[in-house]
């Protein structure tokens, strides 16, 4: 059960090697979380992540999960929920793709969309139903500031996150009053493996800062969290910049 400050005792991470998710898990394990499920494609990285969390005192299980195989989600996640209540589901998987390459390789672009959007839709719906049966729990969805407005430099990734973001908002409204809380997290540029080698955007942040914002959002039962918080203002201004100007901006 979550405590008065929204801190979960059990955590399911979808995308178990995500740096943001692991930073969040470390933070939550330091406070209340005892049971962690890391769902992801079986890999040494997933086992390393599990070991790291075990080292800080969590009871960690790994489970084979593939975002690109939605047909398996019901069975895979059903098994996790059958083991006991999950207080927090952190939907953290996603791929950035390579915009320049993917524009020429539609199949690769579709894989980005399928991972970030349709895979997430499936996993979120399966998780949401299980949480609703429990009558409690939070579903935290890692969206992105890239989904707020299309940018020339990453609109394939951005469009997938835009879809996910709207989906998660609607899901949150659908679940209002069921005891299930859906929180959309919109980080800006986060310095991780996924963004290594990319030019750093302004207001860049770290996985640890996102984790801190998630913990605060859980306490406040927030519905939307921007990281850093200043992005909320910046993006609400940028939303209204005319297209002709926006496409010339060095973003």
């Amino acid at each position: 059960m979550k405590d008065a400050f929204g801190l979960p005792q059990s955590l399911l991470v979808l995308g178990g090697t995500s740096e943001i998710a692991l930073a969040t898990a470390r933070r939550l394990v330091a406070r209340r979380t005892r049971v962690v499920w890391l769902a992801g494609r079986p890999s040494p990285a997933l086992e390393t992540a599990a070991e790291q969390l075990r080292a800080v005192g969590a009871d960690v299980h790994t489970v084979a999960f593939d975002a690109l195989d939605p047909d398996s989600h019901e069975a895979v996640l059903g098994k996790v929920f059958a083991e006991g209540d999950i207080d927090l589901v952190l939907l953290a998987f996603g791929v950035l793709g390579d915009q320049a390459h993917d524009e020429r390789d539609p199949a690769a672009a579709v894989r980005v969309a399928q991972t970030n959007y349709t895979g997430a839709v499936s996993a979120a719906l399966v998780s949401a139903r299980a949480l609703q049966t429990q009558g409690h729990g939070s579903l935290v969805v890692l969206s992105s500031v890239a989904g707020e407005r299309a940018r020339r430099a990453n609109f394939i990734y951005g469009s997938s996150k835009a879809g996910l973001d709207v989906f998660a908002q609607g899901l949150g409204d659908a679940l209002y009053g069921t005891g299930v809380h859906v929180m959309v997290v919109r980080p800006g540029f986060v310095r991780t493996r996924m963004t290594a080698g990319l030019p750093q955007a302004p207001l860049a942040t770290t996985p640890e800062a996102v984790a801190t914002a998630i913990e605060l959002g859980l306490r406040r039962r927030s519905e939307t969290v921007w990281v850093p918080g200043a992005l909320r203002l910046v993006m609400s201004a940028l939303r209204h910049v005319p297209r002709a100007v926006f496409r010339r901006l060095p973003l």
Partner: protein
Amino acid sequence: MSCFKNNRSHKGDTVADMPASTPPGTVPVRTTVTGWGRTAPTAARVVRPRTYEEAAAAVRGCGSRGGIPRGLGRAYGDAAQNAGGFVLDMTGLDRIHAIDADGGTVLCDAGVSLHRLMEVLLPLGWFVPVTPGTRQVTVGGAIGADIHGKNHHVSGSFSRHVLSFELLTADGEIRTVGRGTPLFDATAGGMGLTGVILTATVRLLPVDTALMSVDTERATDLDDLMARLTATDHRHRYSVAWIDLLARGAATGRAVLTCGDHAPLDTLPARARRRPLDFRTPRLPSAPAFLPEGLLSRTTVGLFNELWYRKAPRARTGELQRISSFFHPLDGVPHWNRVYGRGGFVQYQFVVGYGREDALRRIVRRISEHRCPSFLAVLKRFGEADPGWLSFPLPGWTLALDIPASLPGLGALLDQLDEEVAAAGGRVYLAKDARLRPELLAAMYPRLDDFRDLRAKTDPRGVFVSDLSRRLAL
């Protein structure tokens, strides 16, 4: 999206806020439920049995996520919530069956409130044996949390005055449970997890009047306060101190100490003597449903505390006060818990034994250094403990304080205080708890294993479950 349809009746509001005109009845109503602190809402199906048969049917039909009885929802944390399962709203069982006006006992349903008992019993010259800071608790809840009052040093906790009760257990049977049995001791303080109390026989306290004779004095700091409480409280049936936890430096722990007794008839002025047992309860307008957060900040609470302390007389004796203003000042403002805004608040109450004043001093200093904006902090001395296995009071000092849940760093601070409390052989009160770490529970409640064993035997399928029992693995 049909799989997310739900027949929520009231926009995710709490049970306490449901309009009185639509009692849930025996058809379960799916709604979100919180404790009085309004933190950690979870969804449950709420049923309101009106008869013992309906209650038994509800218990038998609880399903895999179980059920938990709920009274008037004054437990601060998650004790009367059950995510995904059933919550039995017991306020529908509200009959007073028999009053022995000579012997001073009452037999009533578990859903009868202490307020109702006072209305009925005071004109007959009887008072409830123990009352907490609110009259809006049920008899069932009073036993389930084994509540205490300002008279704990004299009268012990509520269960000491309970002669017997009828308990609806997990098998759907009704058992009469008498004092001195394991089931009695597990249920007193057992947070509703041993079964649903249906009726109880409670021994009453004779009184001459419905007024209190109150002595008030100020204490300049914590040591002064402890000395005064130790010196005076055996002379009075009731005693408690309001403590200013925002005061720092030399004034740390400054307080207003109030001691009271039921006023004898001859101390009343002539007019009041004509109808000495009139029970009057002033009622102010309800707190509005939506209040901004941060209303209770360090500044506003600091100002309030300063005024409250200055307003109190340095020393005054024999002031006559109504029962409602002496015991239950906050009951005058319905829904006062809303002043903390939608983030809600946490109440922290612990006890440390006599001889562990060092721990109490350290904890008070830490709270004061953290600048917790608490306008409702009370310190009291407990007397002898009662046998309830999870009953909270033990002989020693108890401090209770309300803190907005949004206060930065609060979770970590309270975790550190828990460690202090546990190391000093003390414990925190489960009826107030919404955040204790399960690892510390066994150290605080040495009879926890007995409680778990009894539950495993009497409720093997785990019919009685609450968010509290899930969180703390009770």
